């Protein structure tokens, strides 16, 4: 049975019919074409599918699309202001906080959410906040440096 849902995605209201079992990540990727949100482990561990629901980072592989009805969802596509990158995206670019890029959308959304609640995190707090985001290329050194750089530049959305 299909369910009508109404979700504000990156500032735009989307009304769609979804099957109850459709996961939020598939709704974003397949129904809305927002393929910046990646499907990684599919088991709530890797964080590649991280999006914000009402400003809080969550793993969209472990959410039903119907659960997002009436909420505000932000994906990586919603961070940049036109062609101007979000300061966290800029910092990942500057510090080379990625290699293959698969984990990057989730990393950036988790890191930006951290700065919203804690604008000057310690290195330990950054690593703790990114515990749910796994990078399998090269480790976390430059990712942490990128978040630190963004924090110095005042990259929270707050």
């Amino acid at each position, binding site marked *: *049975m299909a*369910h009508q849902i109404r979700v504000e995605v990156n500032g735009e209201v989307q009304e769609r019919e979804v*099957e*109850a*079992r*459709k*996961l939020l990540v*598939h709704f974003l990727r397949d129904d809305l074409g927002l393929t910046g949100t990646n499907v990684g482990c*599919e*088991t*709530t*561990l890797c*964080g590649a599918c*991280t999006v914000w*629901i009402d400003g*809080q*980072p*969550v*793993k969209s592989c*472990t*959410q*039903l699309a*119907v*659960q997002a009805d009436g909420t505000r969802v932000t994906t990586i596509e919603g961070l940049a202001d036109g062609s101007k990158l979000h300061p966290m995206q800029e910092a990942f670019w500057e510090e080379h906080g990625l290699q293959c890029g698969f984990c990057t959308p989730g990393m950036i959304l*988790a890191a930006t*959410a*951290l700065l919203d609640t804690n604008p000057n995190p310690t290195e330990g707090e950054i690593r703790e*906040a990114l*515990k*749910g*985001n796994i990078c399998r290329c090269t480790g976390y050194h430059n990712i942490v440096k990128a978040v630190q750089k963004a924090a110095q530049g005042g990259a929270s959305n707050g």
Partner: protein
Amino acid sequence: MFPASFEYHRAGSTQEALDLLARHPEAKFLAGGHSLLPMMKLRLAQPPAVIDIGRIAELSGIALEGGTIRIGATTRHGELAASQTLREHCPILAEAAGHIGDPQVRNRGTLGGNIAHADPASDLPAVLVALDATVDVLGPNGERQVRAADFFVGLLSTALGEDEIITAVHVPFFASGVGTAYLKAEHPASGYAVCGAAAVVTMSGGVCADTSLAFNGISDIPVSASAVAAALVGTSLDDAAIDAAISSHLSVPDPLGDVYASGEYRVQLAKVYGARALKAARDRA
């Protein structure tokens, strides 16, 4: 990887949730979905219907009630970890909730969902047993209270009836003189507890007036080390007393073992983490 088909119902109130359950007796409640959805994606669970209780306001929140702290069933782990009331008056629950999974998981997973799932490697069950918490359960015949120690009855099984819903958990409101600690040896990949130790200590005039110690991860259900606690009441709770009580009185029937950690190793972890948790709780009392 997605669940098998199911009917989805969203309940607007606790009563509506129970009514829906009466009409769909094989349905599962969905709150944060962080225990149920992974099971459904792996097809280990294939409920014909799911009742979403995630938006029922009366099921969520932390409030003082009759000398205890009442926590609504759908209160999220992140809210437990951040709660000023818990951090001041029942800090072990905030501490343990802050160790669950990762920030994204804590933003969705709920207290009621956690204990209903009753995973032996989960952090909160042993904490609730150590706190002698009470679980409020509502069914067609009204509400009943179940002590945490009686709530967990086996691997992934609880005393919750098929027609019942968890509405809240009550934990003690501690004033001064009480120290608590939750420490765990976590699995490096999953973050689940290989062994978690929850300790509560009441000190009075330099003497241990009351204490409790419970473990998760080492058995199908939380293990309450009541003999260790009994041996410590009346002592000064110095390191030697704690070490002696643990080595003489900690017994774990049927310890869990797997390819990562044998039962023998988990019992050894319990001895070490149990002693550390008691010492940390004493130092905070």
